[in-house]
């Protein structure tokens, strides 16, 4: 793509050679980036992918000298032919303002909360005398319009807290392109955003980049995003690039064992794999790297081989424009294991459900800060029916603020229901006294999203796992220490780790402790709140497999709460899609993914980036307008109508009923429900 447009003789915009970064920690230097080479050309998007600790973000910061002073940077970085490493303060500053635009990860913190957005967008250009102060506001308005922000004249005078998350990130993009830079560096630009907003932001970024013919370095862990936007890909592992090449080649014929393993470990929307193929072990810590190839301990090909253990492989050409750093790059990978595991049989539909939620409403009062008066209500959950049968997995999927977590917490009894009934095993939970509630809770357990904050840091792992037993006074009755040790075996933790504290475990291991704790009382229902969202891709697959094994072995029912559509597709029997406190569509997994009938489900599925570069040319994409409204002031009628491509006058006035969709085993709440193909006119309008 890049050479085809007549820029063949132009040199790279950014050229990095032998980049090494080490951080001074205590009295030694910890290498975080260990010899990285890459080039980016005009109008080209280079994606750097890697898991946490791979050195990808540090690489991007080193390129513009933004690392803290404790970092030691070696190697050569040339931007437009000028050396950056070792450049003077003023030269660096000029370069950042004129040649490079930056987009950072968290739009919530990258803007200064006490300065007006318009000022922040242009002040860099004003400081470098590239823009006269009198023209700054006009330019800021123009830039905000360029990134699709409505009413920019008003918006430039507002403060960041008056912007929504997606708008803030677009303002950051406006700031990045303010100087018409040659290079844009985007560090996980959409990780903190919802999937429909991510689609908007990526599309804005792509349009502006194409207009300016800027080079882009995009850092991400999301292979879906890579497949959608990259021209070339660099895969980082343990502080080095282990494979690089054109995006099609990386996804079609990956040559490095890590790239292959990574692609196989992610759940996908386009296949019905029964089981994921995780990468064993943990990514290496920068201060404890193996002597040879950093991937050797986890590698299917090289694990245990003396050469891999002793000698670090150089990055060498393996195909046209494709390089990989592996000693045995020509060796065929061992065939992936065939998993002949049957899914647990679905429980009979006639059997009464284990969990039955009817007409659930959860409203939180909004208190004024001054006199503690209730000034309004947040309708977090506003009339929801769900049921989970014995042995099945029901997933609640939706974007942030849709109320899915609140449902989980209400079922668990952590939040008081405003209206409706929750029946567990035939018994209503809503009006139980405290003692009965405690007893009922024994059969229902919860697994949290964040493995770092869900374990009490001052207790050893064995006490954390045993805590539910102690609280219920069942420690001796249920087997005490031996029971705890059994659970450790069950979740794949070594018994030698029993007395360690949470800080000594990795994220994946902590999540295993959380699972062990949830299972120790032998529950029948487990509520899982985004259990893999905080984990690296390769670890995510391990945990998902573990959850499936445990379900089969113990006959558990799962209420699985998630935002990641591929993960949900992988693990669920049935799926309920939520929007703004309501369920908009519910059906069996296969039905819902292959024949979605609600416009929101359709746009959600279309917005989720597919880890397949071919998909970006073939599939039409629905980019929803706007963002999720506040649940404190939901729109009238159908809550989705302001963003919906099928909405008409009826949708504004009349709340659609939740009812079965004729001909499918799906329930939906939409006046105009129907498969996407039936609406070609509407679709053409929304796809750009």
């Amino acid at each position, binding site marked *: 793509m890049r050479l085809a447009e007549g820029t063949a003789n132009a040199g790279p915009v950014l050229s990095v050679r032998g980049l090494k970064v080490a951080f001074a920690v205590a009295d030694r230097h910890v290498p975080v980036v260990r010899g990285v080479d890459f080039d980016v050309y005009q109008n080209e998007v280079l994606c750097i992918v890697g898991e946490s600790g791979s050195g990808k973000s540090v690489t991007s910061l080193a390129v513009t000298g933004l690392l803290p002073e404790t970092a030691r940077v070696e190697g050569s970085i040339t931007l437009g032919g000028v050396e950056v490493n070792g450049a003077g303060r003023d030269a660096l500053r000029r370069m950042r303002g004129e040649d490079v635009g930056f987009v950072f990860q968290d739009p919530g913190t990258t803007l200064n909360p006490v300065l007006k957005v318009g000022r922040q967008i242009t002040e860099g250009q004003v400081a470098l005398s590239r823009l006269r102060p009198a023209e700054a506001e006009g330019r800021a308005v123009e830039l905000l319009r360029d990134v699709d922000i409505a009413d920019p004249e008003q918006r430039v005078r507002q403060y960041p807290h008056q912007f929504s998350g997606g708008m803030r990130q677009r303002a950051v993009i406006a700031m990045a392109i303010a100087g018409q830079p040659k290079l844009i560096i985007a560090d996980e630009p959409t990780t903190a955003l919802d999937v429909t907003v991510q689609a908007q932001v990526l599309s804005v970024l792509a349009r502006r980049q194409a207009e300016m013919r800027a080079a882009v370095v995009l850092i991400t862990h999301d292979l879906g995003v890579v497949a959608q936007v990259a021209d070339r890909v660099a895969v980082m592992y343990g502080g080095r690039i282990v494979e690089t090449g054109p995006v099609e080649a990386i996804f079609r014929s990956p040559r490095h064992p890590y790239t292959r393993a990574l692609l196989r470990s992610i759940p996908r929307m386009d296949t019905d794999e029964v089981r994921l193929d995780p990468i064993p072990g943990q990514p290496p810590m920068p201060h404890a790297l193996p002597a040879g190839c950093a991937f050797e301990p986890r590698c299917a090909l090289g694990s245990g081989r003396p050469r891999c253990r002793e000698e670090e492989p150089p990055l060498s050409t393996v195909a046209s424009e494709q390089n990989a750093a592996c000693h045995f790059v020509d060796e065929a990978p061992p065939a992936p294991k065939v998993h002949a595991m049957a899914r647990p049989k679905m429980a009979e539909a006639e059997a009464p459900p284990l969990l039955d939620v009817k007409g659930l409403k959860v409203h939180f009062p909004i208190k004024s800060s001054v006199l503690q008066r209730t000034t309004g209500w947040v309708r977090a959950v506003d009339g929801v029916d769900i049921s989970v049968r014995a042995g099945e997995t029901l997933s609640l999927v939706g974007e942030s603020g849709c109320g899915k977590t609140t449902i989980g917490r209400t079922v668990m009894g*952590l939040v008081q229901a405003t209206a409706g009934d929750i029946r567990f095993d035939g018994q209503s939970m809503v009006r139980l006294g405290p003692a009965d509630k405690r007893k009922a809770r*024994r059969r229902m357990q919860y697994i949290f999203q964040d493995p770092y904050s869900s374990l*009490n840091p*001052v207790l050893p792992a064995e006490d954390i796992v045993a*805590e*539910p037993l102690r609280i219920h006074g069942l420690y001796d009755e249920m087997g005490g220490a031996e029971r705890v040790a059994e659970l450790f075996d069950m979740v794949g933790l070594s018994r030698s780790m029993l007395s360690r504290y949470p800080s000594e475990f990795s994220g994946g291991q902590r999540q295993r402790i959380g699972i062990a704790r949830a299972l120790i009382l032998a529950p029948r229902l487990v509520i899982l709140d985004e259990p893999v969202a905080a984990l690296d891709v390769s670890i995510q697959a391990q945990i998902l497999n573990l959850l499936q094994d445990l379900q089969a072995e113990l006959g558990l029912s799962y209420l699985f709460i998630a935002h990641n559509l591929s993960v949900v597709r992988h693990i669920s029997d049935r799926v309920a899609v939520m929007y703004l406190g309501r369920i908009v569509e519910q059906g069996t997994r296969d039905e819902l993914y292959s024949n979605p009938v609600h416009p929101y489900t359709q746009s959600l599925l279309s917005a989720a980036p597919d880890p397949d570069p071919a998909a970006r040319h073939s599939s039409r994409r629905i980019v929803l307008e706007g963002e999720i409204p506040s649940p404190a002031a939901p729109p009238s009628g159908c809550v989705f109508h302001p963003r919906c491509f099928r909405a008409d006058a009826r949708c504004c006035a009349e709340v659609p009923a939740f009812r079965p969709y004729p001909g499918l085993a799906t329930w939906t709440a939409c006046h105009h429900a129907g498969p996407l193909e039936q609406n070609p006119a509407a679709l053409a309008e929304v796809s750009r």
Partner: protein
Amino acid sequence: MNRAWNSTLWLLSGLMARPASAAALLFLAAMVIVSLFADLLPIDPFAQRLTDALKGPSAANWFGTDELGRDIFARVIYGARTSLSTAAAAVVIAASVGIPVGLVAGFFGDWRDTVLMRFIDVLLALPAILFAMALIAVLGRSQMAAFIAVGITGIPNFARITRARVLSLRKSDFVTAVEAFGGSSGYNMFRTILPNAWSPILVQVVVLCSVAILLEAALAFLGVGVAPPTPSWGEMLRTGKSYLYEAPYYAVLPGVILTLTILSFDVIGRALASLLEDRHDAGGVQIERTAS
């Protein structure tokens, strides 16, 4: 128990590793020992010899003598008793009221929070010294009155610091987890939250020691502290100030000891805060690995 012991060792070794906090720790240890065993020393803070009044420092009287010919050095040593015992009593009073108040207010966050914190606000609105004076005016001058007055003025700090910590822990998943498993509020407050809240509380204990010593001295300086002839540093400064022209050492030397004591607590408090903060940065409890 083993854990608490390890933590103590780890903190002590951390304090001893820094020159400033090591010096402060040794100075305070010396003060505590000397004031505990002052009776065994060949000094007498009460013996008056009017002929020797207001004599400068000498081999017999290291810090000189006061207006009644009493040995100032002996009075400084016995004054340490007054100061340190006030500090200890104040910490006990302030912590035993302030910590539960902060815990309950922060944990429940409902009307209990509003009511308790309103009272704390009122306590804070009056400068500590005025509050203590008013209280002593009512209770009469005595050691116990000083303890209570200084102790009560320390309550708001404990309550607020505990509450702030509880609020930040309250929403953590590991606290919610205990709730989800059916643990009671009491279990959660005392078994889950409190063990995670002790580091800011510990820092506050040290801070309050220095504040209490300063306040006790200030009360005595204003003439409402412990009743004479019990030696008190503040009382010595008060009397010494009347003899600035004849005997400047009288007001200066006890002040040096008072300042060193307050500075030592301050240095230790800050060293503790930074030690505990570093530990949190390193990801939770590192104590076990470092100490074992």
